[in-house]
């Protein structure tokens, strides 16, 4: 048995020994221990080095608020830094290391920073790096120079870079009542709500339900409080309406009673089961929330209050009662309130010698005097601690007479020999979630604490959270809250009876003992009382400024301990009462949240893949795939040894020579149906669709409301009231939303249904001089000759026994057809077309060849319809009907949109026969060293097998007027300069004889 472990007591299993390492040294603990309790039991006093001064630090607390004992937990190559040792449950094989020390915790070279304490005072970063000029390094540049070194010296744990193989998940939950916190108040609330039949979730950040009942030493209904809590928790576990979430921190309270919680599912396990997530992010939508989050004990601010061995009083009580560990053999207590007296008795019972209780109050009640004598402690009323002694562990302390009214010290210092000093500066309700929910906290002068505000969302408070610090009150409030939350009113019999030590919940308003030496307010960020006063002297009067200037409350613990003492010291400096100084609003998260849990199931796989029906065929046939939005499309079907350019040139050339086929299933397809469908399309497109015959398709252009071009595509009239609209792949979703908006909001009188049918159809575009012959050889049930299937005509037939719809239209500029079939038959039809094409040398082609042929034809895509161009800019003004208004028609003729110097679509030919680049600028005069006076830019480029030249589409000022003139491409980023000729965007077959056949 270790030196500090008690013989009996606590919830640890003394029969089970757990082996782990800390900073490489082997330790043992028992099942039920935290890393903190196990190390404390092993005699460890030094747990970390402070943020700025590298001061040795021990355990301050036993819970989630721990500012000092932050460790990094390693699992193979993965490291998770900045976890409070108090929240790490030990398991066999746990590897934990301390932080912010070099080379070791005991011998830390950074401790030299303590000597420079004056320099590292409040606002250190701002003062040092905002102004000074040191050689060429000025202001922020100097800061950037220094940052590297400072970040290494000051700071917390190091983040890892190894891939985290753990699984994270998100879970959506709904309940009538969410109870946060499982102390007596939370347990009663959950039970009362569950008894009413409500769906209840009970969440607690600790591994075991019970909260203070686990260590208060009180009696409830005649049994130890811890046993009572286990019994209630077991009853709840047996209830189908109740979900119990231990190890679950509710960290965010959002609008609409939506709460975020993090469940640590396997962090306490040696190995996770198959498929078990490491952590689960719970998004909980609660009817009503019961906040039973308890309270935090506050430290007192006095010189040397950060020395290892100085601990919060209740934390020592927890270690002794819950874990069977004594924080010291000779214990002294320092308090401004009654609660520490119970702690003294508990430690005495557990086997420690309580040498003194130092109380800042002169008048201590008889009840407390009785508790002091039960603890066999000397009571020093009207005294204060003015110094602590020792290095990496406490050896003693000094006290002086203290007047709580004036704050003045008097008389001689007296030394007390002790290895543990337990302090209590009063209690602050844990109001973080209530504050996040949207209301301002209210200062209670009696409790000397901020109490939760009146709810602005549907929550009810209970227990210490409301400032009701006794267990009997917590039980009564908890049950009332649970009943109310569940919509019940009936009182359900007598309340559990509590036997507890007496105590006045109100502390003396003493936060700081002003004496010589560093007195810490924020332990984690090394902010002293003097830093707060310095900030005030330098003119910081707002609490928000104070926080940022001193960094008070800004570390991973977010000021759980330091918030109120810091404000009190600020208020004193300002000569104002605390409520006038105000408090900062708490923001999520309540505790640190892993990024993995936020990414959840998207971790490592950010986007779903959208696959066409022929996807597997493309992969099996050597396609190199390209991701276009969420879609995957073949880029090229490369032959061995081919470059991308060689492949697309071969594919495009073969298509123009004979025939090529491309998967166009990704095109957006929208069914536009109903009696008003034609009228609707007339309003949506710039050109007419009501005049389109059934069985015909037409190319259409849409504008936005502001008159700029939006999207283009062909729309097919399949029936009198039945249209199939196609959109560009990229804009399918946007166009759908656009149509839905106008039908719902602007023209609700139109009887039109729009439905996304993109996925219903597999599409294959087959083009080239032999395309018709190939089709004719495999299509049954229809002819495909010019009379039956003219340009923009539609026929229905079958290929390979399945129904197909064929429309004769062309993007490549060749005689071309789009063959649509049910998506489930896509591969079958595709393979039949490939087979039919074999005698003709049909090639499959990808996006690169598709793009090449469209550039040769001068067709526009999203690169030209870029949200800044008009129909005129793109030479599509022939599509703007003058017979009807359409979306954008009123705005498209505004002055700026018809100005002569707008960028217009042109073609470019590289005169130096070198490749052009998208984004390259066009200039009249080349000035490589000082590029200027851009006329426009390149939107798309390729090698044109049809022309045997490198060509591009570009948007250029003056446009058509420059056809036949020479300019230069200027692309300094890629160092590409050279002469180009500006030509029409219709490079190839401008009169369309090939596609009209």
């Amino acid at each position, binding site marked *: 048995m270790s030196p500090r472990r008690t013989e009996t007591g606590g919830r640890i299993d003394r029969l089970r020994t757990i082996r782990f390492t800390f900073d490489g040294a082997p330790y043992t603990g028992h099942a039920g221990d935290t890393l903190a309790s196990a190390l404390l039991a092993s005699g460890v006093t030094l747990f970390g080095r402070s943020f700025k001064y590298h001061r040795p630090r021990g355990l301050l607390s036993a819970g989630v608020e721990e500012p000092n004992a932050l460790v990094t937990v390693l699992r193979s190559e993965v490291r998770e830094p900045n976890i409070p040792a108090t929240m790490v449950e030990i398991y066999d094989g746990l590897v934990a290391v301390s932080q912010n020390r070099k080379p070791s915790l005991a011998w830390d070279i950074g401790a030299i920073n303590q000597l420079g304490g004056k320099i590292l005072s409040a606002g250190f970063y701002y003062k040092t790096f905002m102004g000074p000029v040191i050689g060429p390094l000025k202001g922020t540049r100097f800061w950037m120079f220094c940052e590297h070194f400072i970040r290494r010296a000051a700071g917390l744990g190091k983040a890892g870079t190894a891939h985290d193989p753990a699984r994270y*998940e*998100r*879970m*959506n*939950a*709904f309940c009538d009542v969410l109870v946060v916190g499982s102390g007596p108040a939370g347990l009663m609330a959950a039970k009362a709500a569950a008894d009413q039949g409500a*769906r209840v979730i009970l969440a607690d950040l600790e591994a075991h339900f019970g909260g203070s009942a686990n260590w208060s030493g009180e009696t409830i209904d005649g049994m130890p409080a811890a046993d009572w809590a286990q019994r209630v928790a077991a009853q709840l576990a047996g209830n189908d309406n109740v979900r119990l979430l231990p190890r679950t921190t509710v960290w965010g309270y959002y609008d609409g009673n939506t709460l975020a919680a993090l469940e640590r599912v396997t962090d306490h396990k040696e190995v996770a*089961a*198959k*498929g*078990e*997530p490491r952590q689960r992010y719970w*998004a909980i*939508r609660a009817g009503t929330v019961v906040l039973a989050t308890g309270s935090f004990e506050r430290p007192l601010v006095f010189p040397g209050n950060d020395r290892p061995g100085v601990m919060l009083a209740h934390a020592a009580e927890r270690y002794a009662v819950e874990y069977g560990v004594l924080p010291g053999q000779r214990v002294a207590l320092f308090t401004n309130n009654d609660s520490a007296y119970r702690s003294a008795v508990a430690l005495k019972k557990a086997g420690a010698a309580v040498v003194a209780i130092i109380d800042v109050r002169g008048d201590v009640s008889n009840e407390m005097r009785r508790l002091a004598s039960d603890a066999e402690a000397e009571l020093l009323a009207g005294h204060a601690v003015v110094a602590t002694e020792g290095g990496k562990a406490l050896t003693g302390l000094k006290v002086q007479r203290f007047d709580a009214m004036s704050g003045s010290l008097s008389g001689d210092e007296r030394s007390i020999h002790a290895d543990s000093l337990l302090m209590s500066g009063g209690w602050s309700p844990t109001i973080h979630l209530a504050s996040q929910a949207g209301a301002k906290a209210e200062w209670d002068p009696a409790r000397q604490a901020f109490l939760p505000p009146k709810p602005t969302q549907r929550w009810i408070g209970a227990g210490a959270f409301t400032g009701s610090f006794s267990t009997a009150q917590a039980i009564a409030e908890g049950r009332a809250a649970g009943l109310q939350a569940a919509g019940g009113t009936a009182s359900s019999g007598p309340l559990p009876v509590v036997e507890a030590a007496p105590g006045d919940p109100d502390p003396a308003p003493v936060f700081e003992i002003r004496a010589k030496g560093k007195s810490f307010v924020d332990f984690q960020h090394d902010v002293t009382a003097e830093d707060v006063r310095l900030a005030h002297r330098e003119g910081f009067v707002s609490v928000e400024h104070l926080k940022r200037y001193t960094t008070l409350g800004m570390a991973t613990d977010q000021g759980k301990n330091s918030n109120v003492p810091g404000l009190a010291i600020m208020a004193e400096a300002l000569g104002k009462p605390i409520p006038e100084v105000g408090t900062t609003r708490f923001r999520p998260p309540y505790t640190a949240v892993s990024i993995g849990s936020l990414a959840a*199931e*998207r971790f490592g796989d950010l*986007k*779903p*893949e*959208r*696959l*066409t*029906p022929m996807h*597997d065929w493309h992969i099996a046939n050597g396609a190199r795939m390209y991701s276009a939005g*969420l*879609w995957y499309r073949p880029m090229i079907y490369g032959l061995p040894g081919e470059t991308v350019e060689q492949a697309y040139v071969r594919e495009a050339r073969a298509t123009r020579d004979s025939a090529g086929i491309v998967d166009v*299933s990704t095109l957006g397809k929208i*069914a536009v*149906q*109903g*009696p008003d469908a034609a009228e609707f399309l007339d309003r949506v497109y710039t050109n007419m669709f009501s005049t389109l015959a059934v069985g015909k398709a037409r190319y259409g252009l849409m504008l936005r409301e502001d008159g700029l071009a939006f999207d283009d595509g062909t729309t097919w009239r399949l029936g009198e*009231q039945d249209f199939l609209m196609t959109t560009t792949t990229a804009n399918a979703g946007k166009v759908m939303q656009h149509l839905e908006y106008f039908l719902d909001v602007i023209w609700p009188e139109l*009887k039109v*249904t729009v*439905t*996304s*049918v*993109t*996925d*219903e*159809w597999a599409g294959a575009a087959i083009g080239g001089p032999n395309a018709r012959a190939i089709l004719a050889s495999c299509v049954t049930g229809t002819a495909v000759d010019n009379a039956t299937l003219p340009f923009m005509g539609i026929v229905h037939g*079958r290929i*390979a*026994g*399945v*129904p197909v719809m064929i429309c004769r239209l062309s993007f490549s500029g060749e005689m071309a057809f789009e063959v649509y079939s*049910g*998506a*489930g*038959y*896509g*591969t*079958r039809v595709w393979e039949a077309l490939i087979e039919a094409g074999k005698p003709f040398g049909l090639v499959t082609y990808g996006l690169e060849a598709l793009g090449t042929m469209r550039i040769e034809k001068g067709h526009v895509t999203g690169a030209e319809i870029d949200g800044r161009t008009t129909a005129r800019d793109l030479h599509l003004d022939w599509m703007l009907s003058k017979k009807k208004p359409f979306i954008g028609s009123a705005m498209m003729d505004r002055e700026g949109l018809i100005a002569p110097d707008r960028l217009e679509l042109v073609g470019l030919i590289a005169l130096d026969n070198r490749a052009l680049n998208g984004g390259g600028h066009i200039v009249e005069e080349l000035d490589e060293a000082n590029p200027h006076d851009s006329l426009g830019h390149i939107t798309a480029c390729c090698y044109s097998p049809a022309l045997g030249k490198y060509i591009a589409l570009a948007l250029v000022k003056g446009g058509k007027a420059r056809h036949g003139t020479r300019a230069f491409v200027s692309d300094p980023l890629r160092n590409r300069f050279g002469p180009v000729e500006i030509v029409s965007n219709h490079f190839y077959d401008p009169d369309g004889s090939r596609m009209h056949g």
Partner: protein
Amino acid sequence: MAEQQLPERQSPLEPEYHPGSHGNFEHGVDVILSETRPGSILQLAAWPGEEKRLIEIIRKVTGLALPDGAGGGVSNGTRAVFGFASGKFTVVDEAEGLAQAFAGSITPAIGTLTDLSHGRTAIRIAGPKAEWVMAKFFAIDFALPAFPLGAGRSTNHHDIFAQIQRSGADQFDIYVFRSFARSFWKALCHASEEVGYEVQ
């Protein structure tokens, strides 16, 4: 059109569809995943005021009587129908050709019919942990009182739009866009590993 036996359709899940038990199944399989491959999936929409007439047509053609209320639905094992939006219904049949059965009766005065038999993929999840696994994907309440038997819901999982019908006390049919189906299926299998799953 002359009736002609159509070949079998290709499933978008094929390369990722592995019948058998997977994940943490040593202590039992808590969900069963399958692709139901219905022959017909239709979307029917009624103009405002014509909903009752459409519901009556659905009853006549399929024999399924839609209950009142938003998202109401019913299934009988071979056919299913549920509301997924105001005046809009998804109708599913094991057999092909349901569109032809409706063709004459849904006149332009009543509404529209859109055939989505190829465009949507139907995935079924069944078993005691079906609600648990579904809750990993969708921010809707799957508890029986909130999501009654037969009812339908429209929702999404990130970019993946889904219509969901409760076809049993612990069974849901999920209709996703065909192009997303494989991605969704992979995610569903991954999320089911924890509870042990069987693909049928």
